[in-house]
């Protein structure tokens, strides 16, 4: 377990703070080799710390690190938010969304897929047109990403269905929406633009994994409520009032069971 280490060399810490501050600052301009350029005072600072090479000046050598840092993160953001990329195209997505977001949200997690976690909320702080819809679509993009890393927990034992608490598997996600944004998302990915506004109506959706594919479908409001209860954990006896309102309970449970949506292990905090 953690052992007390010798002190961190002060000069190492100071250098890393300096390096981090510069590479995470947005790229303003680049030269013909696409290496970022810097203002005269920053160039002086870099020349004090970075050695030149036979072919590159100190600031050019440092610029390669800044270029690599931004290119990597922007490319991950493009992969994480394909719907927003389809709406804006790559250049505008980078300029309006990825770059300003990353400038104010330096990654803090070893898991690179988490770098966009705060983007949906951040969108609401911007003056980008249709930001509420964009936020919803960004949340859907993140949900698809989340599903890739969702585990499959052991199924419940049939004999314990009535008395034991059952939970929804982590690969089943529920959404209450003002329209079917999943279908809209599919349309955007296909057409590469934001379609005309759709009719608004309360919509209940489920996104889930089946045979290593991500699938979605609309749910009846009662079924949605039932699944929501299961997400928090419930035994069948507690669900009777809701089950009585369902049109075809046996078919519903056949579907849930064939898709392996239930487990006995808690998947979220109650």
């Amino acid at each position, binding site marked *: *377990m*953690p*052992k007390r*280490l*010798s002190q*961190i*060399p002060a*000069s*190492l*810490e100071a*250098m*890393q*703070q300096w*390096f*981090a501050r510069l*590479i*995470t600052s947005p790229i303003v301009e680049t030269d013909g*080799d696409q290496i970022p350029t810097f203002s005269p005072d920053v160039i002086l600072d870099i*020349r*004090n*710390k*970075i*050695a030149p*090479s*036979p*072919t*590159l000046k*100190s600031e*050019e*050598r*440092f610029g*390669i*690190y800044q270029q*690599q*840092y931004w290119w*990597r*993160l922007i490319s*991950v953001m493009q992969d994480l938010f394909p719907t927003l990329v389809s709406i804006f195209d790559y250049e505008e997505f980078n300029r309006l969304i990825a770059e300003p977001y990353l400038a104010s949200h*330096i*990654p*803090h*997690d*070893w*898991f*690179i*897929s988490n*770098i966009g976690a705060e983007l949906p909320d951040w969108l609401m702080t911007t003056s980008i047109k249709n930001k509420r819809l964009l936020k919803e679509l960004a949340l859907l993009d993140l949900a698809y990403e989340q*599903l*890739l*890393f*969702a*585990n*499959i927990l052991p199924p419940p034992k049939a004999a314990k269905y009535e008395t034991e608490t059952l939970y929804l598997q982590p690969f089943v996600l529920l959404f209450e929406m003002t329209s079917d944004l999943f279908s809209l998302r599919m349309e955007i990915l296909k057409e590469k633009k934001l379609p005309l506004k759709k009719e608004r109506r309360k919509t209940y959706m489920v996104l889930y*994994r089946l045979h*290593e594919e991500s699938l979605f479908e609309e749910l009846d409001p009662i079924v949605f409520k039932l699944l929501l209860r299961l997400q928090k954990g419930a035994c069948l006896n507690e669900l009777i009032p809701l089950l009585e309102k369902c049109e075809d309970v046996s078919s519903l449970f056949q579907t849930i069971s064939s898709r392996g949506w239930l487990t006995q292990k808690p998947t979220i905090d109650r």
Partner: protein
Amino acid sequence: MFKKVPNLGIGIGLRPIHFREIFATWPSIDWFEIISENFMGGGMPLRNLEKILERYPVVMHGVTLAIGSAAPLDWDYLKKLKALAVKTKTPWLSDHLSWGRLPGMRFHDLLPLPRKKEVVNYVAERARIVQDYLEIPFALENLSSYANFADDEMSESQFYREIVEKADISMMLDVNNIYVSCRNEGYDPKEYYSNLPLNRVIQIHLAGHTDHGRYIVDTHDHPVADAVWEIYKEVYRQTEGVSTLLEWDDQFISFEKTWEEALKAKQFQKDMIYA
């Protein structure tokens, strides 16, 4: 303590794009290397890895340990890393001689360290702790460097050598990185590897790079350059035979072509035997 490990032969860096073809044909590959972080999040990637583990040896290679970072070691990360190491039964585990982390920040890049005596001591101590905790041989990989510091006290190869010897750990030698660093800094690759304790090498990385004329970048998206194969031949001979792995991470070619590129290493090894 530094230990010799088995030579697994020729391998390929396992990437998500490969799964479909591997599961369809189960090709005859000696072994795979995985990027540890790609499988530490669980879910589908881990389920795919479990299928691979049934048929192939797998070695773990990480990118976010940040051994030279001024932030404390991340024990939550290390716990997850060790759990995956137990699952994969990786015979050794490697990461980079770099930093990419500060308290509250992760840069997802392999950033260069100042080549100073005090940094050697600091990194060696952390590397030894990591190896003790993981309970398997731990190797550090040399970086592709694009810059070095004005007040460096030693060359890159001397810095690398002093750390692995002081920590008593292994080396994961990337021969393409030797070439990239040497071209970018303006010195001779032979001088670089002649300075290294090659008996500590337990694995070699091969990869392609992008040549921009005035500088080159380690992009893993081209075939291995002839000059890099030359370094490989020299280094491999002096290691007396260690596991060799081809990394290909962008501008992907077919799995078959990737394997063909990796197999060139086998031909070089045969040539050495008959030379």
